[in-house]
C-alpha cells in the first residue's frame, strides 16, 4: 500500500470496516511512513471526538405531530375506500397499469376533453348533482378542516403557517376553522403567523365573528407589520367601527411612526367613504 491509497482506506479503517488483509497492509505502511502515521493519528483523534457527541432526544411533541399526519392520512384513505365502488385489487391493477402508460393518459385525457366540449353543454343539469360526488366533496372538506386545525395547533411557527395556507381551502361556514384563525390572530406569538392570518381572514370577512376578531386585534396589536395589515384590511372592508381604534393609534406617541402615518391615511379613507 502507498501513501495515496491511505486516503481511500482511512475512513473504513477508522470505522473498523476494513477487511483484514487490507488492514494489515495499511498498518504495515503506517509502520514505515511517519507522514501517514501522523495524518491518521490526527484523523483518529477527531474521529473519536465526533463519536463522543451525545445523541439528543427530540421533544415528545414530534411524535404527536407525526401521529397526527398518519391519522389524517388514514382518515382520508378510509374515506376514499368507502366511496370507491370497484374492488380494491381490480382498481390497484388498473391504476398501476395506468400510471405506467403516460401515452394512454394523454390520449384518454384528450378524448375526455373533446367529448366534454361536444356533449357538456347538452348534458349539464345543475339541479341534479351527483350524490357520490357531493359526499366525496363533503368528506374531503372535513379532512381539510382536520389538517388545518391540527397544523394551527403545532408548536412550530412554520407548521402554523402551513395551517393558515390550508385554511384557504375550507368553507366559509366552517366555524371551527374561523374560530381557530381568530384565536391565532389574537394570541399567536409569531408576527409572521399573525400577518398571514390577517390575509387569510380577509376571505371570511363577511362573518361577524371574524369582523369582531379583527377589531379586537386592531385594538391590542402592537407589532407594526400586523397593525399595517389590519389597517389595510379595515380600509378595504370600509369598516367604520375601526375608526375609534385608528384615532387611538394616531394619538398615541408610542406608536410606530409608519403605523401612525398609515392609521392617519386609513382614517381619511374611512371618513371620506
Amino acid at each position, binding site marked *: 500500500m502507498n501513501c495515496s491509497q491511505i*486516503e*481511500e*482506506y*482511512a*475512513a*473504513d479503517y*477508522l*470505522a473498523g*470496516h476494513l477487511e483484514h488483509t487490507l488492514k494489515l497492509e495499511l498498518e504495515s505502511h503506517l509502520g514505515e511512513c511517519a507522514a501517514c502515521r501522523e*495524518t491518521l493519528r*490526527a*484523523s483518529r*483523534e*477527531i*474521529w*473519536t*471526538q*465526533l*463519536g*463522543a*457527541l*451525545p*445523541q*439528543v*432526544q*427530540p*421533544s415528545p*411533541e*414530534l*411524535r404527536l*405531530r*407525526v*401521529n397526527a*399526519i*398518519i391519522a389524517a*392520512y*388514514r382518515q382520508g*384513505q378510509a374515506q376514499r375506500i368507502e366511496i370507491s365502488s370497484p374492488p380494491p385489487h381490480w382498481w390497484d391493477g388498473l391504476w398501476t397499469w395506468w400510471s405506467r402508460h403516460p401515452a394512454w393518459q394523454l390520449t384518454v385525457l384528450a378524448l375526455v376533453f373533446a367529448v366534454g366540449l361536444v356533449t357538456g353543454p347538452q348534458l349539464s343539469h345543475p339541479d341534479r348533482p351527483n350524490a357520490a360526488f357531493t359526499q366525496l366533496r363533503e368528506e374531503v372538506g372535513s379532512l381539510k378542516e382536520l389538517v388545518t386545525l391540527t397544523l394551527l395547533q403545532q408548536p*412550530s411557527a*412554520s*407548521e402554523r403557517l402551513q395551517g393558515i395556507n390550508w385554511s384557504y381551502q375550507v368553507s366559509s361556514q366552517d366555524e371551527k376553522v374561523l374560530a381557530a384563525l381568530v384565536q391565532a390572530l389574537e394570541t399567536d406569538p409569531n408576527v409572521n403567523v399573525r400577518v398571514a392570518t390577517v390575509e387569510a381572514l380577509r376571505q371570511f370577512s363577511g362573518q361577524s365573528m371574524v369582523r369582531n376578531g379583527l377589531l379586537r386585534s386592531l385594538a391590542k396589536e402592537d407589532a407594526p407589520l400586523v397593525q399595517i395589515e389590519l389597517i389595510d384590511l379595515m380600509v378595504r372592508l370600509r369598516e367604520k367601527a375601526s375608526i375609534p381604534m385608528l384615532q387611538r393609534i394616531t394619538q398615541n406617541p408610542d406608536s410606530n411612526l409608519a403605523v401612525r402615518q398609515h392609521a392617519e391615511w386609513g382614517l381619511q379613507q374611512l371618513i371620506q367613504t
Partner: protein
Amino acid sequence: MGQVRNGQVEQLGLLFERHHVRLFNFFLRLTDNREASEDLTQDVFYRLLKYRQSFAPGNPFVPWMYQIARHVHYDALRKKARETPWKDEESETWVETISPEPSPDRTAVTRQEIDLLKQALAGLPREKREVLVLSRIQNLRCEEIAQIVGCGASTVRVRIHRALQDLKLALDRLLGEKAL
C-alpha cells in the same frame, strides 16, 4: 416500508419509533437547531408517506430514508436562503446533555469541547459535513453513503478522510483562538 407502500400507513408509526431519533440527530448536526431539526424530521415522515410508491420493495430502507432526508434538508436550505438563516432569527439556546457513561469507543468530553466541535463542524462545507455525520454519527457504511449522496464509494471514502482533516484544522484553529 413495504407494508406502508401497500397502504398500511399505520406501519409508519413503527418506522418512526425505529428511526426518528437518529434522523433528528442527523438534522441536528447539520443545522445545529432543535426546532428546525424537529420540523425537518416531521417532513421526512410526511414525505415517506407521500412518496411511498417510489420505494422499491426489496431495496434497503435506510439509504432511501436518508435520500429523502437530504432532499428535505436541501429544500429547507433553499427556502431559508430566500428568507432568513436559521441562526439569525430562530436559533435557540439549548444544552446538550452529556452522557455520564460514554460508550466504550467514545471518550468523555466537556461541554466546552462539544461546543467547539459543533462550531468547527458547522464551518465545514455541506458535502463534507454530511458525509461525516452519516459515517461517524449515523454509523453508515461508505457503500450506503454512496447510495444516499449519489456517488461512488471510493469518492465517499476520500471525502470522509479529507473532511476529517479539515475538521481537525478548524478545531485546532478555534482552540488556538480560545487560548489567546
